[in-house]
């Protein structure tokens, strides 16, 4: 048969432009669409269409789509012809190409604008054999399995495969139609020997079948699991329906009927009742297995267990209350009076807004235990929370219910715990509330502590207002100034000054010793304390405003005595002034008032600390030098400045004070305030420093038993200072008899219990000259100098 149709123009040329494919391989006889995005590639395609339409198609070695270093291509590729072309609106084109023959690059002859290379065509090595036929059948069979397992391959492809007779085309066609690595595809492309090509394909197909089988196994497992849970759900629904038919309306309602009863019993206010019933309705509809169910149950649980209507009846027997308060605490007359007043009003008027008291005083003076006594006196429950270090607003007001594991705030938690809506609620350490990015708990407390607002206190979790107006809130604090002013404003501040030694002796005898005896397993007949021994413990072993250390020291003695009894001692142990040292070691503090003498340059001042008042000595010396003025003892700026003011005033008055002016030229002055390790600041030592300096410069000694406090101005005026109460207590404790205070502070003395002021002399002063007249001794020279 003669060849009528010639096809010279379709033979593959030796030089060909190269199109690099991303992550795919085109094999001979295969028609494939391919998107072309690169501008240079588009030019390449267009040029080839005008020419022979032939291009060389090669694959990129790198699989990543972005940033292709174009030089890394495989050397084996396929000659292809562009059959069709469509432009896509984004400027790229889509081509349909048909693979013709396998080719190999000899050398690249052009790089820009696109690559061209010299190539040669590779022919397949094919000798028909049994081996090939077996492989071919095997491949078709495996491919059939793959099409069954994989949803992506249309059945028509399989039909086509079965009808392909040529093994080379079969391999290429299957390779193009299943998922495989670029490297695997490239291996098939590279292999010219048909038998080997079929072998490679067999391995790849085998692997693919295994993967698909495994995948489908996992798939079925998942779907059976899913079916199981679905089945359970249907069964449960059916069960519900059956029960409804039987009239045994549901087992899940055990919980719900329980709540229904509880809601009735809780006697909630209207608002809360509405919310509770709504929540209960919702609960009925939720599947008990749902996570939401337990959230709703929790919430309802909180609602019904809050003491909406439960309260203890106040016993308004004022005499009994007074007895209880006196029993528990010695002294503290002011506070007891205030509490009894509250009770009296309560007796006259049935409903009363709970006052909010705030006890301010040094540690160990009995603030917390006073709260307990009040609860006892009123027959109310006592609860307390410590606010020290709380930084999160949610601690007070709770978390919103949307949070996982949300709970109400501590206020409602404790109220629930108390079980009544009118307990005595103690907010300890209200001055130590922190504040950070989680909010400001003290602001949340404002609502709690305002008698006008707290009848509708709303917790974030509970969301329904709860009436806190019956609660008697008592706050405690060591210091007043860290409490935010709005909070301070809402409370009635009651100051507890430190105890004086006489009080401490009484407290020790009445409360501390009996308690320690009991705690250490002794009996009252085993040990007795002589009053002088207690005094010694107080003065020589403790220095504090409260009584904690005294109790500790007494505890130490009791422990040691208990040991004696445990090792066979029989007789009563009597603790005397002398035997204290045997038990507690040598004295920790010295009451040095007695040993002191009138000296030049040593003045006695009074200081205030959060732990009560303190005695402070100010020492100054003068030495040869050059106009220097040194201040030591960890002094703050305010204190240093007031010392300079004092010195300047004295220098300005040097003639009247009969001080030789030349002395300032030739000497250095050094003022020191022991103890050197404690930081000190404030203006209240002004007159003390001035007195010390005046004594030094005039060489007149200072009376050692006179203490002073007051701010000095540059012109010698004496200004009032704070903390008079604590300072007086400290002076009394230290055994000082005379105290110089600014005249304007005299009114503060009215607040100090009579007992403390008794036997003390107060000298009100307005100017520094008066201080010097009182404190400096004329005529005598000091022996030290």
């Amino acid at each position, binding site marked *: 048969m003669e060849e009528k149709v010639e*096809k010279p123009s379709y033979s593959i040329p030796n030089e060909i432009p190269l199109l690099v494919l991303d992550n795919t391989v085109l094999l001979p006889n295969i*028609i494939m669409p391919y998107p072309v995005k690169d501008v240079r590639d588009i030019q390449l395609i267009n040029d080839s269409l005008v020419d022979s339409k032939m291009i060389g198609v090669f694959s990129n070695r790198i699989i990543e789509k972005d940033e292709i270093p174009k030089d890394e291509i495989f050397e084996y590729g396929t000659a292809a012809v562009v*059959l*069709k072309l469509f*432009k896509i609106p984004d400027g790229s084109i889509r081509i349909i190409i048909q693979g013709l023959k396998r080719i190999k690059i000899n050398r690249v002859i052009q790089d820009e604008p696109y690559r061209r290379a010299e190539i040669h065509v590779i022919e397949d090595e094919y000798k028909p054999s049994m081996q090939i036929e077996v492989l071919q059948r095997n491949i078709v069979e495996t491919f059939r399995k793959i099409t069954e397992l994989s949803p992506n391959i249309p059945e028509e492809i399989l039909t086509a495969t079965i009808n392909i007779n040529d093994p080379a085309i079969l391999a290429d066609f299957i390779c193009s139609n299943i998922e495989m690595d670029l490297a695997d595809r490239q291996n098939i492309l590279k292999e010219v020997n048909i038998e080997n090509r079929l072998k490679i394909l067999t391995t790849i197909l085998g692997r693919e079948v295994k993967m698909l089988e495994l995948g489908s196994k996992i798939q079925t497992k998942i779907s059976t699991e899913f079916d199981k849970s679905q089945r359970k759900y249907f069964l449960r629904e059916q069960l519900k329906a059956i029960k409804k038919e039987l009239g045994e309306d549901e087992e899940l309602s055990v919980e719900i009927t329980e709540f229904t009863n509880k809601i009735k019993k809780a006697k909630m206010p209207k608002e809360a009742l509405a919310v509770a019933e709504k929540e209960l309705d919702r609960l009925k509809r939720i599947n008990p297995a749902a996570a939401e169910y337990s959230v709703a149950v929790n919430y309802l649980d909180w609602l019904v267990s809050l003491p909406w209507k439960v309260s203890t009846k106040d016993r308004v027997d004022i005499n009994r209350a007074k007895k209880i308060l006196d029993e528990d605490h010695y002294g503290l007359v002011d506070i007891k009076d205030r509490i009894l007043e509250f009770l009296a009003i309560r007796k006259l008027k049935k409903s009363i807004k709970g006052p909010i008291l705030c006890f301010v005083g040094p540690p160990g003076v009995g603030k917390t235990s006073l709260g307990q006594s009040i609860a006892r006196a009123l027959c109310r429950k006592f609860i307390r929370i410590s606010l020290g270090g709380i930084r999160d607003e949610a601690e007070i007001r709770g978390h919103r219910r949307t949070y996982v594991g949300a709970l109400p705030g501590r206020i409602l938690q404790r109220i629930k715990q108390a079980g009544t809506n009118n307990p005595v609620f103690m907010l300890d350490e209200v001055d130590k509330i922190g504040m950070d990015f989680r909010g400001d708990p003290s602001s949340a407390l404002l609502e709690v502590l305002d008698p006008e607002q707290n009848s509708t206190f709303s917790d974030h979790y509970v969301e329904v207002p709860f009436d806190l107006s019956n609660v008697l809130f008592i706050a405690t604090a060591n210091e007043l100034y860290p409490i935010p002013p709005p909070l301070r404003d809402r409370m009635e501040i009651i100051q507890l000054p430190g105890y004086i030694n006489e009080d401490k002796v009484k407290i020790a005898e009445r409360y501390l010793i009996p308690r320690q005896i009991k705690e250490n397993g002794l009996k009252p007949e085993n040990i007795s304390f002589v009053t002088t021994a207690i005094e010694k413990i107080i003065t020589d072993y403790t220095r504090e405003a409260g009584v904690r250390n005294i109790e500790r020291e007494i505890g130490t003695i009791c422990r040691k005595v208990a040991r004696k009894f445990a090792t066979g001692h029989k007789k009563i142990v009597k603790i005397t002034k002398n035997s204290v040292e045997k038990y507690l070691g040598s004295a920790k503090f010295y009451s040095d008032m007695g040993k002191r003498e009138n000296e030049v340059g040593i003045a006695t001042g009074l200081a205030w600390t959060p732990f009560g008042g303190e005695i402070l000595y100010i020492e100054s010396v003068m030495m040869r030098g050059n106009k220097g003025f040194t201040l030591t003892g960890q002094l703050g700026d305010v204190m240093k400045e007031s010392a300079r003011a004092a010195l300047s005033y004295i220098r300005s008055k040097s003639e009247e004070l009969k001080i030789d002016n030349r002395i300032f030229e030739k000497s250095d002055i050094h003022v020191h305030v022991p103890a050197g390790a404690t930081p000190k600041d404030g203006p209240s030592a002004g007159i003390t420093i001035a007195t010390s300096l005046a004594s030094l410069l005039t060489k007149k000694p200072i009376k050692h038993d006179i203490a002073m406090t007051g701010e000095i101005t540059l012109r010698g005026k004496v200004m009032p200072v704070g903390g008079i109460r604590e300072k007086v207590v400290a002076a009394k404790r230290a055994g000082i008899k005379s105290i110089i205070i600014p005249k304007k502070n005299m009114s503060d003395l009215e607040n100090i219990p009579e007992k403390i002021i008794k036997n003390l002399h107060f000298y009100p002063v307005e100017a520094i000259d008066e201080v010097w007249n009182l404190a400096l001794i004329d005529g005598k020279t000091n022996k030290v100098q």
Partner: protein
Amino acid sequence: MAKKADDHDDFMLNRDEDIRSMFKIFSKSHHPFLLPSDTRWMPAVDVFETDEEFILIVDIASIDSKDVELFIKKGYIIVKGIRREIKKFKKRHYHKMEIDYGPFERKIDIPIAVDEYNIKTQYKDGFLEIRLKKIVDRRGSKRIINIKWEE
């Protein structure tokens, strides 16, 4: 002629429908598709019959008479040839290239009996018309055969 047709029989896709259905898939899902490397395209055909004739119309516009061949064998007919490209526009830039050029081949099944030696062909306005005479009596309708009964 007959021999040529036999070659194609061996090549691969035996049935015309295989290729057609694969075309359908290709246009939908872009699954790689197979065409012998010496064929670029397949012309569209209309196939129908009248009372007397079996008629094929092949859409092959712009084809030179020397570039087309026609084979017939029992059961099918093959049209093959080349559509040469228009080389008129030297510097051209493609927006669309949809028209098929190059070698083509189309094998069309003939499911009924026809007289292979009674073919009329006509090429006009780009359509190739092929008319085959049906053999109604011999194959299309049944013949009743009398059975001889022995007594």
